[in-house]
């Protein structure tokens, strides 16, 4: 590609919806709900596991303004999954919209709809439910073959073999091995092993999950929702409500953050049922407490890692055995688990043997689901912590150990072929990987060689550095697909209709940039409309770091086809050969370089002036990746530890990222900065605690600490010069990679500071202090 021709990509234009949102224009689901929509709320279980013996709604129904109350007896019993994934879903169909059994504190018991919030809240307090409380599974390490069974019912199923054994509290299981890991480990000069634990982090998207529903003129169910994937939502709703998909339309307006939690239908079926039952518009918005107690978390995991190496630092074997807690329902159970290996193990592709396996178990706790990082952050914490332990044992610099063993351009890993998401993966040779540069540059930026790794800066205050490297992916190859429609409009602008779903990341903007770049027109001439199942082409939605790469390639293809279609149309009009017509800078040229016509003139001609040959010029692009080129990153941190309190402060976090071409460098940078802070939150403060009875105690922003702007020092983000040949204009995706390294890098810095390794997240002051005291520090 000619570099001079680039004028719309690799440029930091503002987000096309930015100013309107800052000014508070009505743009989000709740802003757009009809004023007369019924208010819907859910009665939720106070018990971790119980059978509903009776529900008395008679007093509640007397409340003035009540429209309807639905219980499990009113709803068709259809096992489905709420997970917005490809089809068939790799998640078990183990959820009912309402059920006779409740499986965690927060599970849905009844749907209550009325005129306003006050009457609905009054009615909620008047519903009398009699429960038979059942024994609950509240420790995921005790789940397998526990006498208490979370899902004893027989009418639930897997869509294809995922190791589903609900009678044993196993939602999914998996194991793979290349070579013989045990044997190689036995033969290694140095073996390190450890067991790491990660917590059930909450997404805390600032906008709570929300939806409103209504029946349109044709009696079709319209759903407007804060969803990350409108097309999956339509499919899942059709399944759960036993409705043909032609009768459902799903739209996503602007959305206040997702991070994975809105990849799932947490609210849509409840509003829909009220609309179907009453014929009236209905809206539902969760409270923050409900978001914590009754949406999704990151999968809590236990990761046992064994690494074996030769004395010279050659990594020879990795064995990772994982137990993952999916909570009450199995959404994303298998796939998150697999990413724990598939997006960490290939980092070290030269090993003689690698093994990965384990189980995903049901408990009577908040369900886990998709969350930025999607297993890779858990796997990274364990693997990259173990790598540092290995470096200590070998007496080697952690940087040199990684350099010696990490993946590079032109290389592959068996793991790519073996592990996909729920099924086999795809073979892939890495065409862009600037990890070496990322490490070198990150090392400079954090002053790794210029300052001692550990230094006392005041009595009881130690500064120390640590690092980790990471990889992620760019979409799910051969499973996830995105499409785009381009259509020429009079006055020479283009409509770009995309099924892709901008969560606030700016993907509508970067997709417009890609179209503008290929067409050679200003970005303003690309008018984007997105995320509406009636009016935009299919796209899987925003997850798995797919939009830039998958949807971006679809847009690129649509634009390439548009260029060709325009040349053909002009050729037809002017009786020329299509090959002789050139299109650039909004003009059509003949072989002599003479202007034939302008895009603007031709756009009027084709719609108004060309008589019998008038036509709409429209093209479609669709893309499904044959591979998932990983973005890479090196993360370096400097922490300051207070040895009296165990408190860790991040002084600086340096991220040097290879995501190929940055279509919009500012937006890419913010993706990384935001990911880093969520990773730092997971590492340090986002603690999850349950009561003995299984009630989530950390269920508000008072009790669950997300990082504020005073909590973290400097975040420094740079990008490597990199070009991914299979990506649009050389781009890979960048949404998740930033979150992966902080837990390991910070734990490694703590280890460097004190000699003490803390194996469990988050590294809160009490936990750190306890570990220091136990080690006699």
């Amino acid at each position, binding site marked *: 590609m000619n570099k001079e021709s680039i004028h719309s990509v690799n440029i930091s234009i*503002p987000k096309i919806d930015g100013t309107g*949102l800052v*000014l508070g224009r009505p743009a989000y689901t709740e802003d757009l709900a009809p004023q007369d929509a019924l208010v819907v709320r859910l009665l939720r279980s106070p018990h971790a596991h119980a059978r509903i013996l009776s529900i008395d709604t008679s007093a509640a129904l007397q409340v003035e303004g009540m429209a309807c109350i639905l219980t499990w007896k009113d709803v068709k019993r259809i096992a489905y999954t709420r997970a917005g994934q490809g089809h068939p879903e790799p998640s078990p169909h183990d959820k009912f919209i309402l059920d006779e059994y409740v499986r965690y504190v927060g599970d849905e018991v009844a749907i209550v709809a009325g005129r306003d919030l006050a009457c609905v809240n009054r009615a909620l307090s008047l519903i009398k439910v009699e429960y038979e409380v059942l024994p609950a599974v509240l420790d995921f390490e005790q789940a397998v073959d526990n006498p208490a069974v979370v899902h004893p019912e027989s009418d639930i199923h897997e869509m294809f073999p995922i190791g589903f054994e609900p009678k044993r509290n196993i939602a999914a299981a998996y194991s793979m091995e290349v070579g013989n890991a045990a044997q190689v480990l036995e033969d290694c000069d140095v073996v390190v092993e450890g067991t790491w634990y990660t917590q059930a982090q909450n997404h805390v998207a600032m906008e709570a999950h929300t939806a409103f529903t209504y029946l349109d003129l044709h009696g079709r169910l319209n759903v407007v929702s804060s969803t990350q994937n409108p097309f999956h939502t339509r499919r899942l709703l059709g399944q759960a409500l036993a409705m043909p998909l032609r009768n459902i339309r799903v739209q996503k307006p602007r959305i206040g*953050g997702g*991070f994975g939690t809105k990849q799932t239908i947490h609210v849509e079926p409840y509003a829909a049922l009220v609309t179907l039952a009453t014929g009236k518009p209905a809206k539902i918005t969760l409270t923050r407490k409900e978001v914590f107690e009754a949406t999704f978390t990151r999968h809590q995991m236990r990761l046992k890692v064994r690494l074996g190496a030769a004395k010279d630092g050659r990594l020879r074997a990795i064995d990772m055995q994982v137990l993952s807690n999916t909570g009450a329902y199995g959404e994303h159970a298998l796939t998150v688990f697999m990413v724990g290996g598939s997006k960490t193990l290939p980092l070290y592709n030269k090993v003689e043997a690698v093994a990965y396996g384990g189980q995903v178990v049901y408990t009577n706790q908040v369900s886990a689901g998709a969350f930025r990082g999607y297993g890779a952050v858990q796997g990274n914490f364990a693997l990259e912590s173990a790598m540092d332990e290995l470096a200590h044992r070998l007496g080697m610099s952690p940087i040199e150990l990684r350099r010696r063993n990490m993946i590079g351009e032109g290389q592959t890993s068996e793991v790519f072929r073996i592990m996909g998401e729920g099924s086999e993966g795809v073979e892939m040779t890495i065409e862009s990987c600037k990890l070496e540069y990322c490490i070198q540059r990150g090392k400079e930026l954090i002053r790794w060689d210029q300052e001692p790794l550990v230094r006392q800066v005041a009595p009881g205050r130690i500064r120390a550095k640590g690092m980790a490297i990471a990889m992620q992916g760019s979409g799910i190859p051969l499973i996830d697909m995105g499409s785009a429609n381009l259509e020429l409009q009079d006055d020479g602008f283009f409509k770009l209709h995309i099924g892709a779903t901008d*969560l606030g990341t700016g993907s509508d903007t970067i997709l417009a940039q890609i179209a503008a770049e290929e067409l050679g027109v200003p970005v303003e001439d690309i008018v984007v409309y997105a995320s509406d199942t009636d009016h935009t082409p299919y796209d899987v939605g925003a997850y798995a770091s797919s939009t830039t790469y998958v949807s971006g390639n679809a847009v690129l293809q649509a634009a390439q086809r548009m260029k060709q279609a325009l040349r053909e149309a002009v050729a037809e009009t002017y009786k020329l050969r299509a090959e002789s017509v050139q299109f650039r800078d909004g003009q059509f040229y003949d072989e002599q370089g003479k202007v034939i016509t302008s895009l603007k003139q031709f756009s009027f001609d084709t719609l108004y002036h060309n008589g019998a040959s008038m036509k709409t010029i429209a093209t479609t692009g669709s893309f499904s990746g044959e591979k998932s080129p990983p973005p890479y990153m090196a993360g370096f941190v400097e922490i300051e530890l207070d040895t009296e309190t165990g408190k860790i402060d991040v002084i600086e976090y340096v991220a040097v990222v290879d995501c190929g071409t940055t279509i919009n460098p500012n937006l890419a940078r913010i993706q990384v900065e*935001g990911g880093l802070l969520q990773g730092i939150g997971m590492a340090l403060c986002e603690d999850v605690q349950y009561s003995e009875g299984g009630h989530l105690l950390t269920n508000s922003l008072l009790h669950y600490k997300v990082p504020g*702007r005073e909590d973290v020092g*400097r975040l420094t983000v740079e990008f490597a010069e990199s070009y991914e040949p299979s990506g649009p204009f050389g781009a890979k995706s960048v949404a998740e990679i930033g979150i992966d390294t902080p837990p390991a890098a910070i734990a490694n810095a703590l280890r460097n500071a004190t000699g003490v390794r803390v194996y469990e997240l988050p590294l809160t002051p009490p936990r750190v202090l306890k570990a220091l005291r136990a080690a006699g520090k």
Partner: protein
Amino acid sequence: MMITCTINNEKKQLEIQAGEMLAEVLRRYGYTEVKTGCDTGSCGLCTVLVDSKPVLSCSYLAHRAEGRSISTVKGKEKEAVEFAAFLTAEGADQCGFCSPGFTLTVLAMREELKNPSDEDIRHYLAGNLCRCTGYEGQMRAIRKFLEAHHE
């Protein structure tokens, strides 16, 4: 009960329920630019200016607004447009859900603090959470916005 107050420079009479918070009332009356995010006064999304001071409208009893002047981001549109240019130039608007409340706090800070340091800025804005940006982009935008105003 009825209260009388000024909202975005317009005199308004509002019907409120006892115990109702200002955020609920404002949204009910169509001021949807006022967002809510936490129910516990922890996130800053619902920030409005009451007599030019930022308050959390989710935990500010509506009846206290009697006789006062309330401004949502729409009431500060000129200044908000100016700030939005800096925020969006950094890509730090992101999902935008926290932006109206955050923007009002930034505008109040500009009035209240003379030549604030980075530390002062972070402290003043500590109550405005953002889950998208990591705050750095917001800081870059604020610094440039304050510098531009200074010149």
